[in-house]
């Protein structure tokens, strides 16, 4: 049986079961202790005359307890027994709205069952939180063309569906054009378990440099004109900072040669992600991220390719008001024979900017080492990249580049930024600037 079809069927069945599963968790009702704690006053300076009353309970008529993280549940329960603190309630409403991606969260107060006690009711409106359209990446690079990705996201309950259209000539050796979709289902909030199904269907185009390189080196992996992938995986947030995931990826590639059978790269996948945020003040914060990913294709899963792809990524960002410093590191290793889409690339809009990826290695490399450092002041940016890709049979040749640019959301693009940068590859004897322009790259 075709493993891809089997995975697709199993995935769809599981997805349907998850989506339509009925949640029977009761509504959250936190009740106050018998005695109020007189030591806890309301120091918020609220103008409301009801601030002197004691919170008897905090109730969510239309929301399930399981929707909240432990942290939020603790905060909700800590309100009961204290004096009514409107500032705390407003802060809680804001955090609930953020955590549940709700359209609005409001609260109202009513008399309690005893004199001088009140009940707090939170109304969570999730009806308009649904649809969002994003442009995760839009970039044009001189000499390498453009890349555009558009996505629409629809959350419903504990599920989220994301559908995207893209034409990407930046990330891989080849340009891949097509559609991708993701279905996620989440259990819990504080230590959530997420079930994720990724589906991709692409048409592939290879550059002349790649075709020439492959024709002269028949030992390298072959080209394909279409690629389809189904990748279910399970994610678990061990702590707020550490997430682990494990799953499988069933990739099918249709050969460019007429009549040739399709080949598959079916792999077990694993990932470790760690992120630490340190917010010193409103204007000063630091973020550190480290991730390690593994894709191991074996005959056990019916794969034609057998390989293991390891990648370690680390980044650090520090913001001090209008100043920002970024640093990053990426290392990769592929053992065995991997298809072209798995091979590492440098010389695109995000890594070793200024170099042409086809000049560095038109078929990508099985080894990668890369580092970057950047500085931003307001809209101005400057960066320095250094890295190398190579294969066991080719020696590593480190390259460097520098660049400057401007980037801004202009106050209207919210989380999106328009960026224009000029990058210079540092090579002996000449300077060939590369222009990079776009959004969110």
């Amino acid at each position, binding site marked *: 049986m075709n493993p891809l079809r089997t995975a697709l069927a199993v995935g769809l069945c599981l997805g349907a079961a998850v989506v339509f599963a009925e949640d029977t968790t009761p509504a959250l009702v936190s009740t106050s202790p018998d005695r109020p704690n007189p030591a806890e006053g309301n120091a918020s*300076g*609220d*103008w*409301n*005359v*009801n601030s002197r*009353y004691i919170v008897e309970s905090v109730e969510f008529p239309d929301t399930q307890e399981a929707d909240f993280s432990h942290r939020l549940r603790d905060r909700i329960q800590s309100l009961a027994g204290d004096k009514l603190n*409107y*500032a705390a309630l*407003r802060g809680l409403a804001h955090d609930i709205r953020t955590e549940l991606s709700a359209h609005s969260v409001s609260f*109202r*107060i*009513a*008399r309690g069952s005893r*004199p*001088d006690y*009140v009940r707090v009711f939170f109304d969570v409106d999730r009806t308009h939180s649904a649809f969002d359209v994003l442009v995760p990446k839009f970039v044009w690079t001189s000499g390498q063309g453009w890349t555009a990705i558009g996505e629409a996201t629809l959350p419903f309950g504990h599920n989220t569906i994301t559908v995207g259209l893209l034409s990407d000539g930046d990330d891989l050796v080849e340009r891949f054009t097509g559609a991708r979709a993701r279905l996620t289902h989440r259990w819990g909030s504080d230590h959530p378990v997420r079930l994720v199904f990724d589906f991709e269907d692409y048409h592939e185009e290879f550059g002349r440099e790649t075709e020439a390189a492959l024709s002269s080196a028949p030992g390298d992996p072959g080209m394909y004109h279409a690629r389809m992938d189904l990748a279910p995986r399970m994610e678990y947030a061990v702590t707020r900072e550490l997430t682990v995931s494990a799953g499988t990826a069933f990739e099918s590639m249709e050969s460019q040669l007429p009549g040739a059978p399709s080949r598959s790269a079916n792999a077990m996948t694993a990932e470790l992600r760690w992120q630490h945020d340190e917010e010193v003040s409103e204007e000063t914060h630091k973020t550190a991220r480290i991730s390690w990913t593994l894709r191991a294709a074996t005959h056990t899963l019916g794969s034609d390719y057998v390989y293991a792809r390891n990648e370690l990524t680390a980044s650090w960002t520090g913001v001090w008001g209008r100043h920002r410093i970024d640093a990053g590191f990426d290392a990769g290793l592929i053992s065995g024979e991997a298809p072209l889409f798995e091979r590492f690339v440098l010389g695109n809009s995000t890594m070793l900017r200024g170099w042409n990826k086809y000049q560095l290695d038109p078929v990508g490399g099985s080894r990668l080492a890369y580092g970057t450092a950047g500085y931003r002041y307001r809209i101005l940016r400057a960066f320095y990249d250094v890295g190398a890709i190579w294969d066991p049979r080719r020696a590593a040749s480190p390259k460097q580049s520098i660049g400057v640019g401007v980037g801004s959301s202009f106050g209207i693009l919210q989380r999106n930024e328009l960026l224009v940068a000029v990058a210079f590859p540092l090579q002996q004897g000449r300077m060939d600037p590369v222009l990079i322009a776009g959004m969110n790259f």
Partner: protein
Amino acid sequence: MRKGIRSRVSITAPLCAAMATLVLCLAAYAMALSSEDLIITPGPDALRLSAPRVHFLVGQSLSHLHDGMSVPFDFQVTLFSGSRDRQVWRTFERFVVSYDLWEERFAVSRLSNSRRSVSHLLPSAAERWCFEQIAVPTAGVARDAPLWLRLEIRSEDQRDGPPVLADSDGISIASLIEVFSHPVRRTQQRWFMNSGPFRLAEFER
């Protein structure tokens, strides 16, 4: 075809009539508020305002109050002279009203200028207290010049969140000017009153 035309006429005519009636009623109500409801009383060195027929603790604001929320009301008072083209004086005040859920009485806090609070009030008394806090100084105003007073009250847009405070001493005047510089939103309630022309000399007789 004829049936279709007749049907369209029969729907449009009453709709126009209803709209015209509504506009006339609103205009009449606005005029009534404008001309008669703002009463000016002379004081030693300031004019005092009252509006016994104007009630702003109503509708959506009252619902919010009954839900235990506090509702800010912003007052803007402007004194004009000449042919209503010269602004002589202007002030802003913010009053935060809340409703005691157990005692079923209103409490009001005045945030701008000198801060004051009062509680255990019935709705009409709470409204009256707000008007009593506003004094229009007359020092330097010509006795015989024609004057007009305009009072605008807005309930704060709930989307704006809690009252904006500049510091612990009271509300920022700049933020109140900001409030009145925006057009009224659908979620806001607004009352608008005019009085005049009058002369200070008339009060001295």
